[in-house]
């Protein structure tokens, strides 16, 4: 029982599968809004008309429900806890939501794909 100090002087690496914070791959998102409906803390705001997907990292409880329900596996959980900051930040990603092509007589309907996705961060003080 008495055998020297037991305090770690540096924090250890987080284990595999630890729940830190979430990241999004915007090129896979189809803006179905399932993650926003299932989120228990209400930190995800998805806007299909603008094509923006934003998460408030400081309200996120890292439960992992959005990771489980996303059908395209666009959201991933990272091991590292979110970084401390002076101001609360909302992380916004901008992508292109899929557009339903108009069907007209004699023409085959075309499917639009997400391309040219750009990720940018906006900070709110």
């Amino acid at each position, binding site marked *: 029982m008495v055998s020297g100090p037991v305090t770690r002087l540096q924090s250890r690496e*987080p284990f595999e599968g630890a729940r830190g914070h979430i990241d999004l791959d915007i090129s896979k998102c189809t803006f179905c809004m399932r993650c926003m409906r299932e989120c*228990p803390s209400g930190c995800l705001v998805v806007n299909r008309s603008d094509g923006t997907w934003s998460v408030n990292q400081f309200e996120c*409880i890292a439960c992992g429900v959005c990771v489980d329900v996303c059908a395209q596996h666009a959201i991933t959980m990272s091991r590292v806890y979110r970084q401390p900051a002076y101001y609360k930040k909302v992380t916004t990603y901008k992508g292109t939501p899929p557009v339903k092509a108009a069907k007209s007589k004699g023409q085959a309907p075309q499917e639009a794909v997400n391309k040219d996705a750009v990720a940018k961060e906006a900070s709110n003080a």
Partner: protein
Amino acid sequence: MPDNKSFIPFGPQHPVLPEPIHLRLVVEEETVVEALPAVGYVHRGLEKMVEAKNVNQMIYVVERICGICSCMHAMAYCQGIEELMNVQIPDRARYLRTVWAELHRMHSHLLWLGLLADAFGYESIFMQTWRIREKVMDILDKTAGNRVIISVNIIGGVRRDIDDDMKKWLLESLDSIEKDLKEIYSVIKDDYTVKKRTVGVGVLTTDEAKELGLVGPMLRGSGVASDIRMTGYAAYKDLGFEPIVEDGGDSYARMMVRMKELFQSIDLIRKALAQLPEGELAVKVRGNPNGEVISRVEQSRGEVLYYIKADGTKNLNRLRVRTPTFSNIAALFKILPGSSLSDVPVLVLTIDPCISCTER
């Protein structure tokens, strides 16, 4: 004052209290005559959130009622909703829920033991028990992703798995925890000062315990063999569970019940992992619940009772949680009058108060 009474506030901030409760002690020359409570410091109104969150989102709210017994709150809630919707969860999920629940019981009893030792002034034992508790926290972190609020229960099963490498590592960690626990057990159980301060302090006879409606280790320390795990929810009916009972009814008996339950939890986890069946982790559940149900689970402090009323929409109608400390606080107002002022920290801690459970 004409008589010798004075008021001493055993305030919301006190070194031995894990959570804030206010007791106004009426003291007459070092003997406590009466205790007047004032509660409400941690009331968050969590039962009202059923109006805002739907049935699945409520799991994450219910987990956060208490940090120490959080997985067992979620388990009771999920068991109630599964019974309402007639869902049978897979066998592997039942066993995994048992493993995580017993791990929570272990870390709760280790926390309590540290606080009790600190209440006597034994700071080294406080640090040593919490050092052992850190190993349990590492197990929870590795298997479930988080140290305290593990979020593994969902309606229909569990979300995470314990594979074979993790199982081997878990069993090795349990061996080292058991070795350290045996040293602490042999130090505490025969120590002269610990016995002087706990034997004969806060005695509750069997009849008094049944009349006050106590639950958990307080009931089992007074000679009543009652434990909700005997009804066989989750995987307990396959593991051959017997409750631990002590006669005596004083703080020493309750301390021995909790320490022996620590060793029993380690055995239960080993048995559950040896018998872990193969299979899926969860079944898909569709639709909304309808009806009312009561579900009971043995948490580390006693029996918790969940009353759930649903009406077929995606929000529940009513959720009522009767936590174990709510029942055990009645004992506090029976054992405090007539005790000496220096015994008050030991008496308050012997009921294992979890005030954030009591005032959701």
